[in-house]
């Protein structure tokens, strides 16, 4: 196989230095090299969104990103987001609304939803549906997912207003 390449990747605040094959995608890197199994692979061809992670504040499909491309980048996964509490409100809302069943899509959906609400906290149902249309959930009817994201959007907006002097 092609020679391995040395990469430096910060994942959830930890710096990792690894020799890896250039063909290794970021999803496999996270799961197999780092043991971060919270990122799921549903299709490995960029369609289902299950493998979504955050790279330098942008959501990306880790199956379409080579790990070597993330050299020098800051990667956040569901594990990091959970431990930091950054998306606790979304996680709670998903539980409350039963916006997950098997949970295989859930990490990707949560990170995608968080990205939307950070950019557009006022997103309405139609906009939410549009934004999460790259994330495929086979179990829910999406309805509860939309409800949960909408509710968090409202809360975050109210919180933002409340924080103003």
């Amino acid at each position: 196989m092609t020679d391995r390449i040395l990469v430096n990747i910060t994942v959830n605040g930890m710096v990792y230095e690894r020799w890896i094959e250039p063909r290794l995608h970021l999803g496999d890197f996270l799961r197999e090299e780092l043991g971060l199994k919270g990122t799921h692979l549903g299709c490995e061809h960029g369609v289902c969104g299950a493998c979504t992670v955050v790279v330098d504040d942008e959501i990306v499909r880790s199956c379409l990103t080579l790990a070597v491309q993330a050299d020098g980048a800051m990667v956040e996964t569901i594990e990091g987001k959970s431990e930091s509490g950054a998306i606790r409100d979304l996680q709670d809302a998903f539980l409350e609304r039963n916006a997950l069943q098997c949970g295989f899509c859930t990490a990707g959906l949560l990170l995608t939803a968080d990205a939307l609400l950070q950019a557009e906290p006022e997103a309405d149902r139609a906009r939410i549906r549009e934004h999460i249309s790259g994330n495929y959930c086979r179990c829910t009817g999406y309805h509860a997912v939309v409800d949960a994201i909408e509710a968090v959007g409202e809360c975050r907006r109210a919180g933002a207003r409340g924080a103003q002097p």
Partner: protein
Amino acid sequence: MNNITPRAATVEKIVGRAVPRPNARRLVEGRGTYVDDVELPRMVHVAYLRSPHAHARILRIDAAAALDMPGVVAIVDGRQLAEICAPFVGALSHLAGMRSPPQHAMAVDRACWQGEAVVAVVAQTRAQAEDAMQAVEVTWEVLPAVTRMDTALDPGTPVIHPELGDNLCFHREVDSGGVDDAFATADVVVEETYDFGRHTGVTLEPRSVLADYNPAERRLTVHHSHQAPHMMGDLYARLMGIPEADVRVLCKDVGGSFGIKVHAYADDFATVALSVLLGRPVKFVADRLESFVTDIHAREHRVKARLALTRDGRFLAFDIADLTGIGPYSMYPRTSAVEGNQVINLCGGPYDHPHYRATLDVVFQNKVQTSQYRGVGHPIACAVTEGIVDLAAATLGMDPLELRRRNLMADDSFPRKGASGILLESLSHQRCLARLEQMVDFPALRREQAELRAKGIHRGIGIAVLIELTNPGAAFYGTGGARIASQDGATVRLDPTGIVHCASGVGEQGQGTETIFAQIVADEVGVPMDRVRVLTGDTAATPYGGGTWASRGAGIGGEAVLQASRQLRANLLEFAAVHLGLPVERLRIAGGSVIDTAEGVALMDLAELGSLAHFRPDLLPAGFQPELVVTRHYAQRDYPFIFTNGIQVSHVEVDVETGVVTLLKHWVVEDCGRVLNPLLVDEQIRGAVVQGLGGVLFEECLYDENGVMRNGSMADYLVPMAGEMPDIEVAHVETPTRSSELGAKGAGEAGTAGAPAAVMNAINDALRPFAVRLTAQPITPEKILHALHPHLTG
């Protein structure tokens, strides 16, 4: 002791409440354990080289070059595996005359569908296995492929399995008599043909199995993404000759199942056989592309339907002919004939009509095997029935809702038989219809439809009534000779800490099974839900049972939990009575404490009882042994199945310029018997509706004439995404089954069963001004445009 608990007498029941799932927290935090997350010492990975041809003889396999590649542990063909794993036959004896040839874990001499595994490449990593696979050379002799089902039985068509003589797997006829007379004398006869494209389940987590045979112990442990762990344990034991007691199947988190993961796949046997051969753990995780050509497909049917009616809209007779293609082998052990069998059992099912005739032909093809997928036969039976009923309404010039009202079985007519011979315990069509009319303002929708039509906007309203088979007894498989449990067991026990553990043979694939079991335990033992722990998905630790299929989890598994919990409570009360020296009638358990009902006070916590039993039996009267573990089993034996029913309405807009269908709204009224947890059941229903919407509008496994699948990737095979799905309103009517004390029926499949019919009818309703009807699913924009502009599209 003696705490005053004023509210103890009125502890609220948790069953029936919208309780969130405690076990879902790990899933939202990315801490689940799916099979691919499990890593074992000395584990190796297998990649299967699969036939690129639908039908081909394997002349030669040359793996010499591949064997030397990095990481390669073994390269194995079908013949070698056949020495470890016996062949299997997917036939059930109660489906009289059904035949299927023996199938092997991997192809021996001949591949019969594109995707059948031919060579197993085992290596240290999956990537290495795939690399080496590229270097394996197979010489093929391509054979003619049987792909079309309508010519599968023609004399000129090659016979896939010459030893069978023809391509017929199963034929069945149902005839109540009097059908020809009814059609001859009817005022009105309508007929139509319905086509259904093949589709597949596309569970988001692909099928996965990690087989771990330990030669030192001669024990097999299989981590499996599966719905029926006990069934798989039995099969592995029998096909590989390992005592069943030495086989353990573990199903932790399962990333979607829908019936796709209730089957025993050749790949499963091959992976286990490889582990036996190599004496080390072997992991197989299907990649998405191979999922499309190895996961079971379903629903390839062509159904001809006729309905005879009186002028005032009374149904006289249904006449149905179903033809379905199932691939080269009937799926083992559930068989591929069950889907068609359901279709002819269920057509016309909600209606009161005296005469029924149906024929079924199940034929072999060189395509992926088909078998049971969510709703099994229901979506087809419902679309055929509701499609022809709508055609009848249009022919009579009658409101489709009114025509249904006139013919639905009356709620007070149960128990009774349906015209196909099915036994129906207690259905609520009339109440569901009434509830639907409260939810949906039909007159307003019709007004809006007329107004918009004048402006060139075409909206349609489609109705679908359905019955759904749930809580199966032994009639499904047991009587046909398949070792698939129709009973399920539950074990509940009290720990020294006062925690109640519950182990069940029914597992969790995200439906919330573990949550409803915890609710049942909490109510029936009398403890808060946070004092209950549920364990499922481990054949070494749970009572033997059938697992999850045919919507039996709550109805069968839940009843076992209820019975076990009640007995545990009785045991605990007896224990408390002996210990406290009080008459047992005076005591009850609530909120985790033993209550003196006479005084209205809590006497002791269950933790005290637990500690007493475990650590201080010296304080108990001589000869008294409290029994803190109870197991109960339940099998539904009153009826072959407990049917449920429901009704759905779809509101759509069809763009006649582009053929695009927009789903505006979907309504569901569902009677799943007692609703155990509305939060869970509602989204379960919505998820099922969305799978049905996928089937009617998007999903189809497309093949070329050589039997090669043309759209085996997620980019090409369309599934519903959030953006095109409507909000789905759900309401319930509750008719608890009297066959159990819990009263629960299934709720998992009705959504998938009804949605295709409702949407098809809505589209045809929208297109009424154009006098066209779409009856081939999926109803794609292309088909709509073709129907609307035949002169343009040719």
